[in-house]
């Protein structure tokens, strides 16, 4: 089990990470999510032993790792762009760590891992001849071949294009499950985090603002800013929040965050609104409306409806797509 206690890291005296506490039980995947520059990659590098701590401790199964150099930690790090050794073939790259350990049956193990990542038969190719997605799969196989106690993933999919990223995220999840790997992943993409991990920690400005099982974090973001980062479209406060909640059949609260699809066109819905703009997408029509007592809000409508700008419409509110704060959350 990986434990971080009050971990701080500073560059040139400028704090990049401040007092971070995290726990990662064996066999689980924890995603550290945050906007770029929030210090999430720094945490990963600190765990790997690539950055010195300015305070706190990183420990594994209770043993402090201070003074243990990177290559003795047994934590494999998968970089955003793979960082394959360009002069070695795919098989030599994957077999790098087993050969360092002089493990028996390296060739067989390499074959199995290439099969696991869907690249059977690629062993003799050079990294330069692979596509970005293939390179990243090889890098994953190479990291798994090290049989790491902990796998560190630094934005493993963000260098890839959208379609590939979604497919590989699902693959990654399955592979980590199959191998029973404990993994710490850093990403700025909440969907990637949702697909791959069990637990999630949200970071902002060098601090962890929320941590927990992924569904909990998703449903109950700690504050409006976290909600917006997790893909909630807007946050309403005070009277506007009360109006939205009333339409959803819930008691009033200090603030509420709504997902884009929380408000939908429904002739019998409780909320009246005027259409401000409308835009068709392949799946639905996206509206911006001026809702009575709420103000500007997002809503969706089925593709066969054609609400015109200025038209009065009625909206239903899905209580499952809201995040509610009973007391006033910190300003954002």
């Amino acid at each position, binding site marked *: 089990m990986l434990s971080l206690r009050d971990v701080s890291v500073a*560059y*040139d005296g400028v704090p990049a990470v401040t007092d971070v506490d995290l726990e990662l039980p064996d066999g689980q995947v924890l995603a550290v999510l945050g906007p770029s520059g929030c210090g999430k990659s720094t945490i990963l590098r600190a765990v*790997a*032993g*690539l*950055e*010195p701590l300015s305070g706190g401790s990183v420990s594994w199964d209770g043993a402090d790792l201070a003074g243990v*150099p*990177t*290559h*003795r*930690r*047994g*934590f*494999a*790090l998968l*970089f955003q762009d793979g*960082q394959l*050794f*360009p*002069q*070695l073939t795919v098989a030599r790259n994957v077999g*790098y*760590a087993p050969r*360092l*350990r002089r493990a028996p049956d390296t060739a067989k193990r390499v074959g199995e891992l290439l099969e696991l990542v869907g690249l059977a038969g690629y062993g003799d190719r050079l990294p330069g001849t692979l596509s970005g997605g293939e390179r990243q799969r090889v890098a994953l196989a*190479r*990291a798994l071949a*090290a049989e*790491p106690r902990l796998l*560190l993933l630094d934005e493993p999919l963000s260098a890839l294009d959208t379609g590939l990223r979604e497919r590989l995220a699902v693959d990654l999840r399955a592979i980590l499950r199959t191998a029973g790997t404990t993994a710490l992943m850093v990403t700025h993409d909440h969907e990637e985090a949702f697909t791959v991990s069990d637990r999630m920690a949200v970071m902002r400005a060098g601090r962890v603002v929320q941590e927990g099982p992924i569904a909990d974090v998703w449903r109950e973001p700690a504050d409006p800013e976290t909600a917006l980062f997790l893909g909630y479209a807007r946050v309403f406060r005070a009277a506007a929040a009360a109006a939205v909640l009333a339409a959803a059949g819930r008691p009033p609260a200090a603030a509420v965050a709504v997902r884009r699809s929380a408000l939908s066109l429904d002739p019998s819905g409780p909320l009246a609104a005027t259409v401000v703009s409308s835009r068709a997408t392949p799946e639905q029509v996206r509206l911006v409306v001026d809702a009575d007592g709420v103000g500007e809000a997002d809503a969706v409508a089925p593709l066969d409806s054609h609400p015109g700008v200025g038209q009065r419409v009625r909206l239903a509110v899905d209580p499952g797509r809201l995040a509610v704060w009973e007391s006033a959350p910190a300003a954002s």
Partner: protein
Amino acid sequence: MRVIRLLLVALVPLAILGVFFVLPVTGMVSRGFWTDGSFDPGGVLDVLTRPRVHRVLWFTLWSAALGTLFSLALGLPAAHVLYRRRIRGGSVLRAALLAPFVLPTVVVGVSFRQLLTASGPLGFLGLDGTPAAIIAGLVFFNASVVIRVVGGAWESLDPRPAEAAAALGATPFQVLRTVTLPALRPAVVSAASVVFLFCATAFGVVLTLGGLRYSSVETEIYLLTTNLLDLQAAAALSVLQLVVVVGLLLAAARARRTADPSLARVVARPRRLARGDVPALVATSVLALLVLGPIAALVAGSLRTDGAWSLANYRALETTGQSSGQQHALLVPVTDALMTSLRTAVDATWMSLLLGLTVAVVATRRSRSRSERRVRTVLDGLFMLPLGVSAVTLGFGFLITLDRPPLDLRDSPLLVPIAQALVALPLVVRTLVPVLGSVDDRLRQAAATLGASPFRAALTVDLPVVGRPLLASAGFAFAVSLGEFGATSFLARDEHPTLPVVIFGLIGHPGPMNYGMALAASVVLAATTATVMLAVERLHVPVGST
């Protein structure tokens, strides 16, 4: 903490630099400031008011400026033709025009004299012993520096901005003026500053072509110390040169700090010649004549004795030369000197490689803090210093500081290689630093997280990248050592001279046979160096030269 560890790693090269560079140079310089045990800076200042010193300074300045100007004027068009145009025999021409870079200065001096001497092929021009001959010799050397530095940058210059400009309606000349030259500016400035430095500190060429009449600061230091034993004046000039050169190096480093296009390795395909290339072709041809003429004259001269073709000069290399009075020109046969040169070069090569590699590794590792980065930059710059200090100062400094316990190396066979290794060091460091610097540090980190120790990670990540550049810098160090004359002329023991020392000795002794032997020995030395250089050239490694 990391800064401390960094300094510990850097301690070995620092100690070597301290003992074999700082100590001799300060020893030499302080010899001038302290007369009879008391500090006497006034004497040094007095030196700077001497009319002869003024003449020397002025000559150094304008000859170096003209040398730089002509090197650029011929080198830039040649770089264009050799690296951006497809011409028949291009690779041979390129090798021929790049070779002078490492040709021994003494050989070049001898070649030009053979070409321009009253009885030589161009004797009717009456240029022998004139500043024009000296400047031609400087250009002979330094145009190749311009071609090497600018050509490398030009070759890897992204062609698309130029194409974009052309598509927007710019004529080829406008493209050159508004896009290409600005993009090459760092390389051109870098080349120009280095060439000026080389011209201003040229020793072998000026000494062999200028004699006593035309003296630069460098040769004046030599003449003052060896012939006139005026150490105070020599020290004054050394200090002056050190200050000017360090200033120049700093300026060059600043100019280089702007984006260096030589790091983007997109090699544009060379195009065919067009009519607009005629001026560049003319300049390249002039340069080719300037380079090949003296060499041809040298080879031809070495094959002639008593007005007929013969190999007598080469056969004479096994002798000690013609006697004048009772004394032979040499103490040992030239062939012995060649063996000494080769042995010395081997020693100098491994020394400079070992030292250069350590420095390059220390200078390029990723810095975690600003103070650490500053320490690395200072280290990097510190090891460039030998480039700026006159080899003559270094040699003389060795002679007077390393001659007594605890370090009495006067009779050590390692003294000459150590000095030559220091002279070659900047070249080695400059070849290795860009290569090691271009390695993504995360590749090393990836190896570390897979369980590789730092040593193992270096084997996996750095060795494949640095292998060929290392071989190339070995070749450069070897060639530099073979031709090194400034420091060696002080340090080589009389019974074990190197080839350049022997050649200089031979041209200083009267007698046609001695002169013929000097020519033949020069050919042998040039051929040895050229062979090494051609082997290096086959490695295709880009070389920075400051």
